[in-house]
């Protein structure tokens, strides 16, 4: 069972088509350039939010919860960190 926080997080990713890929729907795109630009903004915001959540490992934590079918808690986050820390610490930081 996922708790409300987890579901809400996945909702943000879902509006983008997911940080994880889902086929993007192009239906409902406005017919003129002006309304098209306006319609783009929520999508741009969703991309930026998803990007930040990926960089800051929030998406990875959501995937961890989903994979293990557990809800967010101190213990769950500790388990996630334990799983991810060696992987993260091995990533080279660029110059």
């Amino acid at each position, binding site marked *: 069972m996922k708790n409300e926080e987890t579901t809400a997080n996945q909702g943000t990713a879902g509006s983008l088509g*997911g940080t994880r890929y889902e086929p993007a729907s192009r239906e409902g795109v406005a017919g003129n*350039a002006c309304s098209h630009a306006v319609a783009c903004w929520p999508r741009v915001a969703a991309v930026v939010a998803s990007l930040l959540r990926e960089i800051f490992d*929030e998406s990875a934590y959501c995937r961890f919860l989903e994979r293990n079918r557990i809800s967010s808690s*101190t213990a769950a986050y500790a388990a996630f960190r334990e799983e991810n820390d060696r992987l993260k610490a091995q990533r080279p930081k660029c110059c």
Partner: protein
Amino acid sequence: MLREGNEPNDMRISRPMKSFLGILVQAGLAILTALALGIIALHRGEQINAMWLLLAACCVYFLGYRFYSKFIAAKVLALDAQRATPAERLDNGRDFVPTNKWVVFGHHFAAIAGPGPLVGPVLAAQFGYLPGTIWILLGAIFGGCVQDFLILLFSVRRDGKSLTEMAREEIGKLGGFVAYVAIIGIIVILLAVCALIVVNALKASPWGVFTIAMTVPIAFLMGFYVRSLRPGKVLEGSALGFVLVLLAIWVGQWVSRSAVVSPWFTWSAPALAIVIIVYGFAASALPVWLLLAPRDYLSTFVKLGTIGMLALGITALRPTLHMPPLTRFVDGSGPVFAGKIFPFAFVTIACGAISGFHSLISSGTTPKMIRREPETRMVGYGAMIAESMVAVMAMIAACVLQPGTYFAINSPAGIVGKAPEAAAATISNWGFPVSAQGMHALAQSVGEQTLYNRTGGAPAFAVGMAHIFSSSLGGQTLMAIWYHFAIMFEALFILTVLDAGTRVGRFMIQDALAHVWKPLGRTSWYPSILATSALMVAAWGCFLWQGVKDPLGGINSLWPLFGIANQLLATVALCVATTIVIKMGKRRFTAVTLVPLLWLVAVTFTASWHKIYDPNPRIGFLAHTRQLGSSAAPSLEVARMILNDRLDAVVTALLMFLVALILAESVLLWVRVLSGRRPAAVKEVPFVMTRFAAEEQT
């Protein structure tokens, strides 16, 4: 984006009309590029606006991406949208995850953007803005972007294999070994250089030291927040940390003015070096969640925000460049570092044009997130363009300073003298007027006691950045705050590279030592953790100590060494890429990787030769050894400096030798493949049809 065929009738434009408009726009852009490049290259005697640099950069990047990367994607690599990527085939919800292309782009950029593109251009500005800018633009378009793009795609086609694994499989066992040793070498030198930059930025600066010291308890607090208070809410924790860091900068002003507290945070360079060495060891040996992870998040938060702010500040202010296009130091007598434009400008710019380190990221986490092959073009080529743009902004930040101020900050005491009057007189005699009073006023305005001899590039960049920020927001009253914000940003950024790099190096040493004695490879066994952490810290610590103690060396010796090591790694990456291109049967297009490879070989081997054998003691390690041996009275200090010079010479020669080996092995393989004596077979994983294409059509 409008789907073809869905446009309303009044919006529909016929195909020939569209292509005519496209040609018109592209021709206009080409003319604009030529105009902008012409202005920055040919303008003499008058100062130009920084917008010309930005305009030239944007046009060159656009044309490079639109045409050159498209050519590579279509002709050389034949990107296949139908081919399933490892992210799709091996999707495990952990490291292999098919991810939105913009998210991968941002993730990749955040990983490749380090302090190199900020510091390198600032140091290279001693030649004037022209050589550095041209190399940043051309080096990125024809070298750095190509390397990142190709290595990313080749890794994607090999289930996300690392550069070392690809070198071993495609070139030979020697290739894999050389890549491994080159990576350890570059990490050691990089960490020493990074630590030295931080030491030079923070020495005798109570405000800076206080702010950076405060990031440690702030990181602990963030760790507690994301682990216990709000599990997993890293963005919230980072935003909280950022606010606390801003508060620390504000309180730092009071600390620097307090007669009681200020001396606690006023440290000499050797004292700071010791603290940083101890910190590096602790960060490597402590559990990662305690310090490393929260600092990493905080640093990334600050990094992305500051780069965005700098871009906005330059665009809003449109500052004038005071540095001339070419200075008198093109002859190799520069005070910031010695050596002529060729090869040293190209070695110094480093990551802004081409960086071997990027090939580690391109064959690390990124290929495991790519969901469709064609997206490697945007992520690999495009993210390097963004990195190169950061280098252009750093060049602008350095060149908006008055040249006299720039040289006063960046010249070591051994060249211009320790006394302010003497330094100002020496620099003014070079034709770059600066006064001791002016420098004193500038130091006061940024809340420092002095800005002389702040070598390393970071303080000059911070002054330039503070100038741009304060002109856009807050005026002179906020100059000190902006300066210390910039110093905090660079130091935090660099210290994160330092602690993460030490840990990565520790893992690499443990992996290697496991072949000697298995328990040494156990990453949770504390005796092994302590021993390998100490080994790694000692390796970069001795270079750092040398940089701190040597009045003529320091960044002057170490930065070119770092640039050489970094570009030698790029040489290894381009050897791998050229080998694969030849094995793919694309010999007609070998020039795409061979030309940048030959250029890098020429640059790095010439630079290495000069660093070892040049008769000028400011350039050649051995000449410096001879000078020390003949002129000074024998002492322990002189003996240590001689030992350091010999160590530098040996390290440079070793790196050069190893890369010559991999080059020779590659050339031998190319000749065999091209003459038909060896089959042209690449080690790609077999083709599997992607399910995404079918899903998109339904």
